[in-house]
Structure formats: structure tokens, C-alpha cells
């Protein structure tokens, strides 16, 4: 066999999408001493939360927590797990800085321009170190830049534009922004540059921002109260309000779909809402989940499909937005009893990688089509 034949053959085996091996069915995330516990006698476990995809790898934030009886205690610094789902290998990126307390309880992670941006909540009080937004260079596996947010702000969602990084606040219905060039606070820095108020439902208590993101160049933010939810749109540069619409109760995440809409999952009422951006935002109940115990945590979109995570029923779904009669669950998979899945990444139309909060592992369940 001559060399000109060997090279294409190797490329078919190694380069082609259709020839790669399936992702590892399940593998554990690092725990214990690998997570650099504050007290070596009391190590934590990974407890993964949010995910992003970059360069064929899945990145997951690790809250690094342990149980003290019925309380969840932060065991060590926040980490970002760089996961090769096909090899089943994990590299850890320490977000804790020199003293280990730079970032604790990392939440949402976003990819933009080859960098990763992580929102860290600290101890959720808004008054102690560990909160802020951090830029991670996945190549060097280091934190390249970071900003500790001001007193009282507890970063939740993170959305990245070419000039600003927007952060939601999990204790108030506000947005703050970080200048991406200087990595200093922009909106929310002082009285002359106040935080951006997010319109919230008029019913229910304790409005907060669970998630923010950029869709078609606009900034979107969810506001959740105890019994309702709202999706609001803003100018991504100035923060000027550009309308809002009611979604379901306790929305958790949203994703831009292939047909230009926005899919929002509502954890308290087992529903998915589809929002159509236009001059105004219009929302439509798209799907009520069947199990009645879903507790939807995540939604990711890929073409005509969206993929959702239901943490209480320990399942992930593939939903066809163009199914006859409206969006339908066309495939479903179980992530393991007691696994409490939290986020997923769709590698292709039929392959997902899921991080399980309760079992601190990664699974690639086989999506079983509806018969």
C-alpha cells in the first residue's frame, strides 16, 4: 500500500466525525486531595454544575463541596474540569488562585473567542472573597484575568460580548458588566454607572437573575421569582432595555434554537417556553414534560433539536422543534438513579455528555428514540 492511500485511511479513522469512538459511558470526576481541600482531613467532591464546549472538550465547573450532616459546605477552591469525553480523561484547572479562595462555588461557564469565562458565587453572601468573574485560558489551563465583583453582588449567569462581560446577580434583579479590555467593572462600578435593572414578574417573592446570554447580538436575562419568570432583552453594549416577556415559573436556562427562537426551561412547572424575538418578544408554551417530576435544569440547542436535563427524574431529553403538532420529546435517556444531572453538552444530534451533580461523574447516556 503506498503512502498516498495510507494518509487518507488514517484520516478517515482519526479525523472524520463518523469514525470517532463513542464517548465513554461514564467516568468519575476527581475528588478528595486532587481538589485541594482547605482542610486535608475534610476533602470534598466535584459536584459539577454548568458546562461549555470548546475544541472538542467539555468544560464543567466543579463546586468542590462536601456534606456536613445535612449542610453543604465548600470544601476547597472552585475548579474547571477539562473533559475529553472520548478518552474519559479529565484535567483540572484551579480557579482558586494563590490562596485557594479567589473563586469558590463556580457557576456558569461560557466560551468566547477561545477563552472561557466563569462566574463564581463565593459563599453567596456577596460580602466575602471567592466571588467574581474569571477568564481562563484553556491552552495553558490557567486563570488569565479576574475581577472580584463589588460588595453585595453574587454573580450568577455570565454573557460575553466583544467589549463587555455581563453578569447576573443571584441576590438582586440586576446586571453588572465588566469591560472586557481592562477587566474592570463598567455598569455597576459607581453611582454614575449603576447596575442595569432587570424587569421581573410582579408576582412571587425574591426576584433574582439565574441566567444571562447573548442571542443574535442582544443581551438576554432571565428573572425568576418564587412563582413566575420573565425573559428580558437589552442592548448588549449599553444595557438599554429592549422588551421582555413572561415565561414559566422559576426559569433556569435558555438557548438560541436553530430557527431563531429562544428555548427557556422552567424548573418549577416542568415546561419549556419558546420565545420569538422580533420587535417585541412573544412567548409560547411549547412543551409540558411528561413525568411531572422533571425539575428542568439545562437546555442546549443544536439545529432543529434542543436537549434538556431533568434533575429529579434523572433524565436528558432530545426534543424535535419541528415535529408534527409541535415540539416533542423524540428521545430520552436515564443518567442513573440518584445522579441529579445538572448540565449537558450535545456533541452531535444523537450524542450528549452529561454532568451529574449528586454522583460527581460524567455520563454519555444512549438516547433512546421514542417508539
Amino acid at each position, binding site marked *: 500500500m503506498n503512502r498516498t492511500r495510507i494518509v487518507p485511511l488514517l484520516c478517515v479513522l482519526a479525523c472524520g466525525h463518523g469514525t470517532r469512538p463513542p464517548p465513554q459511558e461514564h467516568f468519575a470526576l476527581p475528588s478528595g486531595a486532587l481538589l485541594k481541600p482547605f482542610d486535608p482531613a475534610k476533602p470534598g467532591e466535584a459536584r459539577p454544575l454548568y458546562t461549555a464546549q470548546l475544541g472538542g472538550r467539555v468544560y464543567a465547573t466543579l463546586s468542590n463541596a462536601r456534606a456536613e*450532616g445535612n449542610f453543604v459546605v465548600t470544601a476547597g477552591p472552585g475548579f474547571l474540569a477539562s473533559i475529553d469525553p472520548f478518552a474519559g480523561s479529565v484535567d483540572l484547572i484551579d480557579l482558586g488562585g494563590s490562596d485557594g479562595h479567589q473563586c469558590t462555588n463556580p457557576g456558569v461557564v461560557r466560551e468566547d473567542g477561545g477563552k472561557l469565562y466563569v462566574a463564581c*458565587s463565593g459563599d453567596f453572601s456577596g460580602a466575602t472573597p471567592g466571588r467574581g468573574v474569571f477568564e481562563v485560558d484553556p491552552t495553558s489551563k490557567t486563570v488569565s484575568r479576574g475581577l472580584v465583583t463589588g460588595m453585595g453582588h453574587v454573580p450568577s449567569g455570565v454573557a460575553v460580548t466583544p467589549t463587555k462581560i455581563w453578569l447576573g446577580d443571584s441576590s438582586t434583579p440586576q446586571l453588572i458588566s465588566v469591560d472586557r479590555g481592562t477587566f474592570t467593572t463598567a455598569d455597576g462600578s459607581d453611582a454614575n454607572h449603576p447596575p442595569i435593572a432587570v424587569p421581573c414578574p410582579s*408576582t412571587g417573592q425574591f426576584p*433574582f437573575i439565574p441566567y444571562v446570554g447573548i442571542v443574535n447580538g442582544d443581551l438576554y436575562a432571565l428573572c425568576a421569582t418564587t*412563582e413566575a419568570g420573565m425573559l428580558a432583552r437589552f442592548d448588549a453594549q449599553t444595557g438599554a432595555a429592549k422588551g421582555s416577556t413572561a415565561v414559566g415559573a422559576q426559569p433556569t436556562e435558555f438557548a438560541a434554537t436553530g430557527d431563531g427562537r429562544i428555548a427557556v426551561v422552567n424548573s418549577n*412547572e416542568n*415546561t419549556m417556553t419558546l420565545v420569538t424575538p422580533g420587535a417585541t418578544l412573544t412567548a409560547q408554551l411549547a412543551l*409540558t414534560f411528561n413525568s411531572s417530576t422533571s425539575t428542568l435544569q439545562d437546555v442546549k440547542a443544536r439545529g432543529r433539536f434542543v436537549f434538556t436535563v431533568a434533575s*429529579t427524574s434523572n433524565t436528558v431529553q432530545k426534543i424535535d422543534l419541528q415535529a408534527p403538532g409541535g415540539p416533542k420529546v423524540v428521545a430520552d435517556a436515564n443518567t442513573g438513579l440518584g445522579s441529579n444531572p445538572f448540565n449537558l453538552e450535545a456533541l452531535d444530534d444523537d450524542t450528549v455528555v452529561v454532568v451529574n451533580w449528586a454522583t460527581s461523574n460524567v455520563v454519555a447516556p444512549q438516547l433512546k428514540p*421514542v417508539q
Partner: protein
Amino acid sequence: MPRAFAAFRRSIRFAPPAVTALALIAAPVRARAEDARPEAEPVDIVVTAPEGSTRAPAAQATVVQADKFAGEVRSVAELLSTAPGVSVHALGGPGQATTLSLRGASADQSLVLLDGIPLHGPGGGAVDLASLPVSLLDRLVISRGVLGAQFGAGALGGVVELVPRRPRTDRLVADARLTGGSFGTFGASSSVSVPWNGEGGGLVALEVNRSAGDFRYDQQLTPEIGGAPYYEFTRANADSWRSSALLRGTWPIAGETGVDVLFQGSLGERGLPGPATSPTHRSRELDRSGLLGARFRSTAGSASYSVRAWGDLDRIELRGASAFGDCDDGASGCPSSLQSASAARGEVELGAPVGDRQWVRGSVTAGMDRASGDGTGFHRRGVFSASISDDVRLGALSVFPALRVDVVGKEAGVSPAIAATLRPWSVPIELRAGAGLSFRVPTFSELYLRQGGLAPNTDLAPEHGRSIDVGIAYRSESLTVSAGAFASWYRDLIVYELFPPAAVKPFNVGAARIRGFELQAVAKLRYGLTAELAYTALQASNTRPGTLEGHSLPYRPPHRLFVRVAHHAGRFESYAEANATASMPRNQFDTAFLPAQVLVNAGAGARVAGPLWIDVEAKNLLDDRTMQDLFQYPLPGLSLAVIARARL
């Protein structure tokens, strides 16, 4: 926030399931003649049941005679579920935590009394019915409605009075009962009642039971797809055992004067298996409880009075319970958790005729409640109440006004009520109507419990409720039919709300309106057959202004039907029954529902030799292994049991 709700669900799973302690003292003096009815052997089916509670004589009530189910394996919860207006919430199979809801009210809003003594959980809240030994009871009286004026603060949905067995004063009676059945379930109970000193007597009753709880159940692993396949699982860590004792004595002094003493104790252990989607294999719960009470009763002229004192102690220990589910007991980060509660009371009660048409009754109670534990810290609060009620008989019309003042810690409130009955015709038809207003003081758990994702709120105020009901009853030798309608309104309901970023916390933000219809019929048929029916229609609506207004309250079945046909003759007995519950909302947005469920049971028995009866029974005859309770705890499929019993 999802994590917070997950934590809340876990807290529900591990929440101290209430008490175990029962106890009692003598019933009110006026009830003694009724209590002393002869014990029938073999079981006599009572069609025209006693009218209900002596404290709330005009309330919509159902009396369940425990003896009627002597040939069956029944828990207190199963006995209650034969009555209208009752909804039982069970966390799994035999021996697992069980609470009740009366007329759609929450478990915290319904009182469970043992001979007038209110029982409570270790956090001061709902009583775990699974901890109550059924063989020590004579009957259960379920009174429905806002009955704070008659029973005290907290009776917003109604009251269950557990009437314990009384000592015989005429002859020695002994009985014994052995049961064995599916899932490694065994039970034994025995009692001896000895008369003494003329009108006196003593009773010793013991009960032990255990269950391996390892039943099989079916579960969907991909439930978001309609028609997804079921897979078979075996329940693990659902075993339980319990031992209970009742000691009771009555000593006559002279005439109606006498002293009654009672002790009741219970201890048990069970696994906490967790919901089907997140089973926990290492979590355990141990509990023990005890109650001691004494009562002096006497008469002065035509008046009767009593002075009584009682105290109880409940203690519960959780092992292997973790914020992440379960853990190895004793390991680092896995400490056991203790919670205990106690109460002590002194009470003076007086009843006297006023003229020949009225009987006025008054009482004053004072005492102390205490709770301590890892989750709540140490707290105590004084308790005081004063009540007055009247029974006015005006020919065919009887009127029952009542008023009670309760002071619990820093909270105080007044509970007024009025009820009336009318028998306008010569036929045995009775019309009833009643109205009541009352409140519920926050429990120690709601005020102070900090555990996992639960946050306390010391600023909580009492919940308030009011209700009206009307009813009609027909009673003859062979048929009893009662029907009634009610409406209840609640405000300042304590609701656990998300408290960002990662906790849930109780607030006085709820409001609700619950309306319903209740029907009960018992008919004595030919050939020794008895048929009975209990039906409840319930419409529970959220009236809290906002998005939820007009939605259904979760966990309240809109329809529930119980039917039973029993046959009894001198040497044989049998029964068949069905309990159907309509689909009910699982969340407060009407977007999730628990499917309708039908449970069919049947049994038969014979007196095989002398006083020895042997019975067999089958529960869940349809072998539906897909049934779950409200919180995704699987329920057992078909189970079989054999019961041997004798009374001398």
C-alpha cells in the same frame, strides 16, 4: 433555584417524621358510659355508630371501630382512610412515615389527640401515624372542620381522636394476635385486662411488629416519554420495627370519684429508603417516646370535674443522612442528628347542668412545650388555654356554642364556634350546621429549624382559618347515611419559599379556599353482609394573589372513594374493599399530576377452634406495582398476610 429545591426535597425525606408518643388519660366523665360498652366477640358490625366526638357533638364526624378490622392487618392510617374527608400521605410501605390531611388541610393543620392529649412531632408539627400502635386503640373519631374552639389552636382541618382501649372492670379479659405476611412482615400483640377493687381495673397491652419492607416495584427510567417501559426494582433499606406498650389503671374511690393513670411508650427504628429516583441505602431513623398521665375525677352535686396532669417526651435520631442523600453513619461529615420535643400540661375541667336544657363545660389548661436538637437548638414556650362550651337542648333543636382562648408563647388567639342540630321530623333524620374560626401557631421547626436547604423564620405569625358546613344524616337500624358540604378559607398560610440563593424559608404568604362534599353510608344487608361507602369531593384552590391564584393546591385529590362489603357470621367472616383516588396535582401550577390509583383488598377468616380465629388477606389484589406516593416513594404490590387471634 434548583439546588435549593433539591435540598428541600431531601429535607422532606429526612424530616423528623413526628412522634410516636401516645398517651392517655381517661375520657371526659360524660363519655364513660359510652366507653364502657361491652366488647363484642366475635366482632359486631355497628351500623348505627356512635355520633362522634363528645367535644364537638355537632361536627361532621366518622367513628372507626378498631375491632371491626381485627382480622386484618391495619395501620392507623389505613383505618383513617376508610373515612370521608381524609387523605393519607404515606412515604412508602409498612412502617414508613405517614401523615394525614383532613379536608385538604395540611398535616400540620390537623390535630391528632390521644384521649384528648394532642400529639406532635419532634419539631412540634405533624404526627407520624406509622408510629401509633393500632392494636392499643379502641376506636378513632374523625371530626372535620375548623374546630379550634372545641380542641384548641391547630385544628384547622379537623381532629382525629384516638380512643385507647380501656380496662375492663367486670371480668378478666385477655387477647393475643399474631400476624405474618409478605415482605418479612410480622406482628404480635397481646393485652390483659384485670378488674380489681370493685369498679377498678387495669390494662396491660403490648405490641411488636417488624417488616423487611423489601417489596418489588416497577419504575420508568425514562418517564418523560409517554408509555416508556417499566423496570422492576426491589425496595432496599425500607425495613422497620416497633415495640409499644400501654399500661392503664383506674382506681375508684367513692361513687364517681376515682383516679386514672396511664403510661404509653414506644420505640422503633426504620430505614429511610428515599424516593425511587434517588434511593438512600444508609439512612436510618430511631425514635422513642413516652407519655405519663394521671387524672382525678369526681362529682359535686350534679356537676362533674376532673383534674389531670400529663407529660410526654419524643426523641428522634437520624443516622447516615447527608445533604447529598446518605452517608456512612459515624464517618467524617456524617454525624447523627438528634431532635426531641416534650410537653407538660395541667388541666382542670368542669361540667355542670344549667337548668334542665343546658350542659356547660369549661376548662383551663397550662403548661410548657419544649424542643431541642441539632437543627433547632433549644427552645421552649408557655402554653395556656381557657375554654367554655354549652350544649343547649331546645326540643328538636340543639345548639352548641363554644369559645376558646389559646396562648402559645407570644402568640394568642380566640377560636369561636357554633353548631346546631335539628331533628324536625319523626323519621330519624338530623340536619346539622356549624361554623368555626381558629388559628395555628408556627411549629418549632418552622420557627427555628436550620437544616440543609431549610432556613428558619422567627418572624412567622399564626395561620388563620374559618369554615362553615352543613349536613344531613339518616340513621336507622339497617342504614346510616350522612352527607355534608363544607367550605373553608385560610389566610397567612405558612409556605416554604425559595430564599435565594440556596435555601427555602417559610413565610406567611399563602391563602386558600377549599370546598367539598362528603358522603358516608353504611348498610346492613341480608345474609350477614354489611356495605359501606365513603366519598369525598374536594376543590382546593389557591387564592394567593398573583400567578398562582385560581390554581389547584397540590397533593389534594379532587375525588376519593372507599367502598367495602363485609360478611360476618358466628364462625366465618370476609371482606372486600376498594379505595380509589383520583389523579391529583403534584405542583402548584397544574402542570404535573400523580396518576389515579385504585387499591383493592380482600380477606376471609374462620373461627377454627374455640376462641381462635384464623384470617388471611390480600392487599393490592390488582398487584399494581407502579403506585407511588406524592413524593415518589414506591408503594407495595400484592401482599398476603395470615392473622391468628384469640380473646379469652
